[in-house]
């Protein structure tokens, strides 16, 4: 079973000077082998005690950190969080942390994802930093999987994504963007900005049954 897009949030959301942020514009469908990936960026690199919850008013599912990295400039942190078997429906995605920060958040729902969770469902996470006009992260993946990235910098708007854009925002003191793609052996998620210190994180999203196939081949 290949990973397939279920839904992207209708809009991303930006908060300034806050310590929790809610996004209620994602509707998770009822398809099989569901997963949710949140793309989150902060301007303050030292935010701590971050928790991300899906449907906090009811099923209160924890969305676990897949990958985080800080940029080399004054500001800019990019995170990806993942959850398998998210509760279906139009629910709230809530991120909470200590101390104030600006934040941007988007979320994408998928079907056809391995339901093990953790690094099994979201393998090959990676990060990259630089000071240039081309933020980029290369994600190891496979046909049938999917990949996502999230990038942040303190200054400059993102454009020209190499993959399908899921969000791009410049309303706070952190400028960020994210994208998604069908899996391939090596997926390059790149953007264009005016030169700045950027940080990008990426993850593979494993297809349901893909691990079984690999195991079967190994046994043979």
């Amino acid at each position: 079973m290949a990973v397939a897009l279920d839904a992207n949030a209708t809009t991303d959301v930006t908060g300034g000077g806050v310590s929790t942020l809610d996004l209620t514009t994602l509707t998770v469908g009822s398809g099989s082998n569901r997963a949710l990936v949140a793309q989150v960026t902060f301007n303050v690199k030292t935010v701590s005690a971050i928790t991300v919850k899906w449907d906090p008013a009811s099923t209160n599912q924890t969305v676990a950190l897949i990958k985080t990295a800080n940029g080399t400039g004054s500001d800019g942190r990019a995170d990806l969080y993942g959850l398998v078997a998210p509760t279906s429906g139009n629910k709230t995605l809530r991120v909470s942390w200590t101390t104030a920060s600006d934040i941007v958040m988007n979320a994408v729902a998928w079907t056809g994802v391995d339901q093990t969770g953790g690094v099994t469902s979201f393998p090959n996470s990676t990060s990259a930093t630089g000071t240039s006009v081309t933020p980029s992260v290369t994600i190891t993946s496979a046909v049938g999987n999917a990949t996502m990235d999230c990038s942040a910098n303190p200054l400059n708007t993102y454009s020209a994504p190499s993959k399908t854009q899921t969000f791009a925002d410049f309303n706070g003191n952190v400028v960020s963007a994210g994208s998604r793609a069908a899996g391939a052996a090596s997926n390059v998620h790149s953007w264009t900005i005016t030169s700045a210190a950027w940080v990008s994180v990426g993850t593979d999203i494993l297809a349901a049954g893909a691990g079984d196939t690999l195991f079967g081949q190994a046994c043979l």
Partner: protein
Amino acid sequence: MPTQDFVVLSPAVRQGQITSPSVQSPANILGIRFTLNLLLADKLATGLTASLHVEHSVDGSTNWLPVCGFGWTSYGPAGFRTNPDPFLTFKPTAFPSEFFRAILDVPQSLSVGATITVTT
């Protein structure tokens, strides 16, 4: 790009849950920003909290649905950068010509107002 401010809740000492009047987004809206207007002294206090949630409605009178929201905790005596009024933005183009309103939750007495800034 022109902007227009709608002071939907005038600054006043408030406590509890307050629902603002609604604002209809113009058809050519490009951006929207919800700002919690606070006193500097309160922003530099310790332990004050407030939250703001945004709802949208097709007709402005029924079936209000949540869009997004934030929680704010006072920055403390050391402050937070330029001690901004906390704010929230999203892409209103996803809700063309719809109505928006803000729901404030203020658990303790606090001087607070709310402004919706529309960019067209």
